[in-house]
Each structure stands twice: as structure tokens, then as C-alpha cells.
């Protein structure tokens, strides 16, 4: 089942939480809905779920217009940010609850609940109440509850935000696995770009109610449509050098680039920290200001023009403050943006 939004808008009294969004969530894939806090991710999810009514625009499940359909008729599974497990029911009762609503015979409901518990690896916790489970365990129960009625679409609202770093990584893989095993069309809300990048087949990124870009993680990372997307993805974030196009050329802290027919104008040049190369023949010399070691790689701070840039280098190489380095850039690694933040294509 694919989900399509057409010019979807949701206004609360003053805020326009979702503004004219048009996009398609791919069938059987996991789409990450990414954006900063308050950008309208949850609202979009609740619109799809039917808990909010759209101000204008349409929502389609395959070719069926569900914009006015009641949530209970939409056949979706929803995992809330804080799980919303019923505290007075055991894990098993929680998972069976949606089936009992559908009047599935007790025996079958039990069997399906047990199968689901197995899928999310909580078979031994079925008699516990939510209060007696860890965050990660509760989350799995919530996913099981959402999946047990075999929904056509699974919606997850920042399901990992309450977990510690290690558990997050683990659960991320789990969700990916469960999604692959069930093949359910999944929309996964998060404000963590790394999480979205690692888990998604496709990412939709939002800012202030506006959809910015929809693309695969690789494509979005390499080819952001605007400065917001470029800055939002990647850690450490992209370096932005303020400069200008003059006579068909741009000079970003010593790195030159032909800009073809683009007219002269001030621009922002984005260069990812990993796009630099230590290169004895490199065109730009810089002085190391500081180093940061993460173990896997080393982050080097150096001025390119007036901008203190981050440069990722091999962890084996050791510099110290004041050393001079010579840098070159990988092919096509300079991204140009105008002052509105729109991408300029050469």
C-alpha cells in the first residue's frame, strides 16, 4: 500500500503545521520523515492516521481517497512517541487488544499475539505490565501491538527518542528488520538525521511545515536541494563558506570552481568535512587550529579564507596545533547556494 499526500495542509489557529505537502510514501518501503522540532512531522503522521483532520488537500492510500475516513477505518498501526501502552494490561493483553476489538476468536488472537511477540523478541515478557519493562521492551510491545492486526501502513512517531544511545542503535536495526520481514509500508518520524539516514529507504525532510526534499539518503546527502537540507544532514555538519561568483568563477577559501553561466552574485559554498584530502600537491595551504579525535577518524580545524572549517582526516595521521597542511578537494564536492538558500546548479 502506498500513501500519497496531495497539497496537504493543516492549520491550527495561528500555526500552519503542514503547508501544502505533496509526496508519495513508497509501497513496502521505510520512509523517514525528518525535520527539526516543531516542523510538523507528528502533525503529518496524525493526518495520515486520521487523528487530525486536514484543513485542505488530500490523502490517498493507493488510489483510495481516505481524507475524510475515520481513523479506525484506515487500517493503520501507530506507535506513539511514548508508546501509549495501557498500563493496567500485561504485554500480552496489550498486543491482543486490537484483535479483540476486531472480534478475532480468543484462541487465534492469542496465537497471533504470540507470533508477534516472537517477531519483536519479547516472548518471555508477555506477562509483564508496561511499568515493569524497560523503554526498549515497551517499544517492542508497542510495535507488536501496532503490527498484530496486520495494518496496511505502520506509522512510528519518534519511537526511539526515549532510549539511551546504545539501545537506540539496537532498536533501529530491529525496526529495520521487522519492517523488512513484514514488508509493511512504514513511515518513521525522527529529528535525528543519522537515524533517518541509516534506517530509511527514502527520506522526506521538512522545515517549518514545508516539505523540502524527498530522496534516498545517499541522493539527499550528495545532492541537497537547498542549504537547509545540506546543513541538516551530516555530522559534523557541512562547512559553509560565504563568498561570491565573479566572472564565471567562485573562490571558496582558495578552492576555485567554474560556475559556467551563473550570473555574478554572493553565494554560500558548502563543502562536506569528508570531501577534503590531505594532498602534498594540494592547491590550498592551511594552518591547523585544533584537533579532535574520535578514534575512527580525526577532525581537524583550519581556516579556509575567513571560515574555520572542519576537515575529516585519517585517524593515523597526527598533527598538532600550528602545523601547516596542504589540502585538495574531491571531485564535484562544492555545493553552491544563493542567499535564499536555494541550490545553484552549474
Amino acid at each position, binding site marked *: 500500500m502506498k500513501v500519497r499526500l496531495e497539497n496537504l495542509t493543516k492549520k491550527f489557529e495561528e500555526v500552519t503545521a503542514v503547508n501544502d505537502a505533496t509526496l508519495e510514501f513508497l509501497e513496502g518501503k521505510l520512509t523517514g520523515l525528518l525535520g527539526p522540532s516543531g516542523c510538523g512531522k507528528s502533525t503529518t503522521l496524525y493526518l495520515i492516521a486520521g*487523528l487530525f483532520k486536514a484543513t485542505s488537500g488530500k490523502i490517498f492510500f493507493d488510489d483510495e481517497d481516505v481524507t475524510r475516513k475515520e481513523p*479506525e477505518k484506515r487500517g493503520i498501526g*501507530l506507535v*506513539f512517541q*511514548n508508546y*501509549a501502552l*495501557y498500563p493496567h494490561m500485561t504485554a500480552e493483553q496489550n498486543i491482543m*487488544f*486490537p484483535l479483540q476489538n476486531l472480534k478475532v476468536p480468543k484462541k487465534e488472537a492469542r496465537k497471533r499475539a504470540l507470533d508477534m511477540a516472537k517477531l519483536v523478541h519479547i516472548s518471555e515478557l508477555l506477562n509483564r505490565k508496561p*511499568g515493569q519493562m524497560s523503554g526498549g521492551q515497551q517499544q517492542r510491545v508497542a510495535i507488536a501491538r501496532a503490527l498484530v492486526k496486520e495494518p496496511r501502513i505502520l506509522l512510528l512517531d519518534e519511537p526511539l527518542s526515549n532510549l539511551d544511545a546504545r539501545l537506540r542503535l539496537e532498536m533501529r536495526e530491529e525496526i529495520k528488520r521487522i519492517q523488512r520481514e513484514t514488508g509493511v509500508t512504514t513511515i518513521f518520524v525522527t529529528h535525528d538525521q543519522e537515524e533517518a539516514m541509516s534506517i530509511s529507504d527514502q527520506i522526506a525532510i521538512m522545515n517549518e511545515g514545508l516539505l523540502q526534499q524527498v530522496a534516498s539518503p545517499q541522493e539527499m546527502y550528495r545532492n541537497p536541494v537547498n542549504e537547509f537540507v545540506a546543513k541538516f544532514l551530516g555530522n559534523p555538519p557541512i562547512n559553509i563558506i560565504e563568498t561570491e561568483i565573479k566572472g564565471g568563477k567562485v573562490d571558496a577559501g582558495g578552492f576555485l570552481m567554474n560556475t559556467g553561466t551563473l550570473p555574478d552574485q554572493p553565494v554560500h559554498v558548502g563543502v562536506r568535512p569528508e570531501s577534503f584530502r590531505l594532498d602534498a600537491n594540494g592547491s590550498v595551504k592551511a594552518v591547523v587550529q585544533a584537533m579532535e579525535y574520535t578514534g575512527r577518524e580525526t577532525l581537524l580545524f583550519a581556516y579556509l579564507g575567513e571560515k574555520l572549517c572542519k576537515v575529516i582526516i585519517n585517524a593515523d595521521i597526527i598533527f598538532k596545533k600550528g602545523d601547516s597542511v596542504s589540502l585538495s578537494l574531491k571531485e564535484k564536492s562544492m555545493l553552491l547556494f544563493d542567499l535564499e538558500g536555494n541550490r545553484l546548479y552549474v
Partner: protein
Amino acid sequence: MFEPRWKTTLKALLYLSPALIVIAVFVIYPMFRSVWISFFKDYNIFKHTGSGFGLDNYKWVLNDGRFILALKNTTIYTIVVVPVSVVIALFTAVLLNSKMKGMKLFETLYFLPYITNLIAIGLAFKFIFNSTYGILNRILGLFGIDTIMWLNDPKYSLPALIIFGIWSGLAFKIVVFLAGIQGINKQYYQAAKIDNTSRWRTFTKITMPMLSPMIFYIGIISFIGALKTYVEVVGLYGNNPGPADTAMTIVYYVYDLFYGANEPPRAAAASVILFLIILVFTFIQLRASKKRVQY
């Protein structure tokens, strides 16, 4: 958390002392005094002198037909009023919470009895129960039910008291339940909606269990309140407990012994018996609730 120490305990007592003194003078002392009085055959409450120490008063009260009647009435009253009013209040609170049209008006209406004196409401109910002009009989008349002498027929005086008792206690219960319902996280209801849960199941499987501590609390409070019913009788009947004592309650009996019959020791004995009854039942309920009340 910190360990209680002598110093902190004394300090706390100092702060509590105004309240403690008032409670001691007006609650604790009279309580012990009345237990004390209840053992004397004769007692002068002004001179604090008594004679004939023993259990005679208790024997007398337990053998008094009026006490047995009061006990019976109070028991019936409690058994009916507590569950019925709790159920009605619960449903009303759910209804009020559902934000249907016209609920604003209703919100004022249900709150009225809470801020109005019970005696005044009793007067209003006298009119409602009036056999010739009363609205209750008119309504029942629409269903073909003959005129009922609510307040004058001994058969109906206790039912009248029960109806009044249910109604007068509703406001408080509704307010508490409504607050409880509004305290339940909306996400449970959203989750239930997504999962296609019927309204009835939402009520029995989500609202009720989540409210269970509150339902229990209200249950105990109104149980104790019902066992101590008195003002309702006065409000409805004035200075007699219904035709042929048919609306006599235990507290009314105590009051009547004290002022009417001028028998303080016997009144004290009756009130001690009531105290023991309440104590035992509350204890049983607390024990039972440990198992029943959810999460």
C-alpha cells in the same frame, strides 16, 4: 527523602500544633469522651459525673426495636445509594467529558447541588415528591403509574430518601470523576481509536481501570457518608424520621436519643456501635481493594 529526627519531628509538630489543638479539642476529646460516657448507666454531661459502669447501654440499644429499624434502613440505604450513585456519576462524567452539545448548561446544573445547602435541596425535593403536585408523580403518571404518596406512605419513605440521597451526592462524585477522566492521557484514547475500539470497550477496558483508584476512593467516602446519613432525613422530613420512623437512620437515632429522649449514655453507645460498623467495613474494603484496584 530524609531520615526523621527528633529535631525535625519537633519542628513539624510545632507547625502542626494549631491544627492539632483544634482537632484534639473538637474531635479527639469528644470521641473518647463519648466512648467513656457510653459505659455509664447514668451520666450528667454538665457535671461529668456518672454511675453504673458497664455494658448496659449497649445491651439496651441492641435490643431497641428502633435501633434495629435504623440499622436496617441505613443498611438498605447504603447498599442502594453507594453503587447506584457511583455508576450514575461515572456515566455522567464520561458524558460530560465527551464534549457534546449543550454540555455547558449541564455543567452548571450538575454543580448546583454541590454549592447549595442540603436542607434547601430537601425542601425542593419535598415539592418534587409531593403526591398531588409533585413532578415525579406527574412523570410517573405519563407511564401509567398511579399516584404514590412518597413522603406519607411508609412503604415509600425509604425509597424517597434513597432517591434524594443518590441525587444529592452526585455533584461531588461527578466533579471528582471528571477530574480523573481528564487526567487520563489522551494518547490512550487515540491509540484505542486507531485500534478500532468500540465506545463501550473503551469505557470498560480503559477508562474504568484507569479510574479504579478514584472509583474506590469515592466508593469508600460515600459508603462512610451513607452510613452516617442524617441531614438528608432532616431535609426531607424535618423533625421526624418519616411516617412511623420508616426513614430512621442510625445517626438520626443517635440524635433522637440524645436530644429527644435525653439519654446521652445510650446515644453514645449507639454512636460507638456505628463507629465500629464503619471501622470494620472500611477495613474490609481496604483489604479487598489491594487485590482489585488496578496499577
